[in-house]
């Protein structure tokens, strides 16, 4: 029987294989090194980037700016999304009023709004954060309200029967009962936010990982394009890991 460890080993072996294949393909000259830099070049580029940054902006700032924009938008989305989701999940008239609007906006790729937010708010920090915030908000509202609607009626009756007042019902019963779904919304929104920040920076920014990729491709500094992609991927994995840990901690009572 294969164990979890042997599957993990398999994952690492895949990475090792890709690395070896990459080194082979680039060093043997099978692929133009301008299109695919070798691992050694990438290693040197990474060192340079850490030491000197990119286009007179330090590395930590490119990374930090992207992360901060994500967190600001995501935070805003969560802060507004949970109460609105609770409201439209619990109170049907609110759902009737706002539901169709949210359903209309949700399937539109957030990137499609980039020209509009630039038109309205320019190319500063606010439009980027707003864009991320709206996308995160929509997914958290969707999941929260679904979570509220899925709460068994008997659970709410039990709470009322024991003397819970309306505000206690919301804070002590409905919110925790919907939390598993809310966490699903937060996880989706986090991944989405990270994707949107890069897209927004591709279009209009003076710093950030998206900006770096765009600028590097304009000036044909291909290793920096790859480096940007790798950093985005690694941070994406780290974010997913963080949200998984958070979910596990907050929902330990599900017993999984």
């Amino acid at each position, binding site marked *: 029987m294969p164990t979890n460890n042997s599957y993990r080993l398999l994952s690492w072996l895949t990475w090792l294989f890709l690395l070896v294949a990459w080194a082979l393909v680039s060093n043997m000259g099978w692929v133009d090194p301008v299109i695919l830099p070798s691992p050694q070049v990438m290693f040197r580029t990474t060192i340079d980037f850490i030491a000197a940054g990119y286009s007179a902006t330090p590395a930590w700032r490119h990374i930090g700016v992207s992360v901060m924009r994500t967190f600001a938008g995501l935070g805003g989305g969560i802060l507004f999304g949970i109460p609105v989701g609770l409201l439209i999940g619990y109170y049907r008239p609110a759902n009737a009023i706002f539901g169709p609007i949210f359903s209309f906006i949700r399937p539109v790729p957030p990137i499609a709004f980039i020209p509009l937010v630039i038109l309205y708010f320019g190319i500063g920090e606010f439009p980027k954060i707003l864009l991320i915030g709206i996308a995160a908000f929509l997914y958290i509202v969707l999941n929260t309200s679904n979570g509220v609607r899925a709460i068994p009626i008997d659970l709410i009756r039990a*709470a009322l029967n024991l*003397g819970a007042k309306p505000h206690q019902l919301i804070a002590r019963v409905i919110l925790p*009962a919907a939390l598993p779904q809310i966490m699903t919304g937060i996880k989706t929104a986090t991944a989405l936010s990270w994707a949107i920040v890069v897209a927004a920076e591709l279009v209009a920014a003076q710093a950030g990982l998206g900006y770096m990729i765009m600028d590097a491709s304009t000036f044909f500094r291909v290793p920096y394009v790859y480096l940007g992609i790798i950093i985005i991927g690694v941070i994406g994995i780290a974010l997913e890991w963080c949200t998984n840990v958070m979910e596990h901690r907050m929902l330990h009572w599900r017993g999984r």
Partner: protein
Amino acid sequence: MAPKVELRNVSQRFPSTASRVGGTLALDSVNLHIEEHEIVSLLGPSGCGKSTILNLIAGFATPTTGEILVDGKQVSGIKPDRLVVFQSPTLFPWLTVMDNVTFGPRMRGEAVATYKRLAEKVISDVGLGRFRDHFPYQLSGGMKQRAQIARALINRPEILLLDEPFGALDAQTRLEMQQLLLGIWDQYRCTIIFITHDVEEALFLSHRTYILSPHPGRVHREVAVPFGRPRTVALFSDNTFSRLKGEILTALQSKLPYGEHASELTQGGGGEKDVAAPSLTVVRRA
């Protein structure tokens, strides 16, 4: 003295849906009464409106017509002196057994000192002493129902409404829980209304049983259960117990739409006193 709980001509009609034009009549002129400290079971097949009756007494719904009286006064709203124990486990899964049990007092803003001792007591009374810090997912089905009973008891309810609380448990556990409930009643003396579709369960627990018939829900017969207390498992092999069980099963079957066993028992219908077993008397505890 007024009965503890009384239903007078209670009818309940649920509004129309796409599939049921004109609405559904769930209860049709139900009359019943439960005396203080009595255990009364409502026995019937699904569709006989027994859960609807419980929801009405609990205050989760209001009847279309008729009156529901508790201590002679019309029921208004949901109150912790009438507490429901549900069939589906409705423990709050994010709270430990202890926090579930103290949920009521905490919501009502009572000081910890006032309920802490009682919390320990009710938890040990239902046999969960060692599990006070466990979460619901760590409990078996029977233990969850024990915790639900403890969560009700801490509020010192006058009336305990049990909605098929042991229906989902295996036979062994169910018997254990029935005995536990009898013990709880001995000690706390609340009025208990117990919903079930299990004839033996109704006979084992109650002073009286109302047999309900479905579509629409009506009181078919009232049966006084003549056995003294304390009751033990030996009751299940008692002759009168078996005879009563047989009679009730026959009565239940005669009232099913496809029943072929229409017997003389049905003639008593409409909520009158049990005519087929005149020897049976109502056992009341003061």
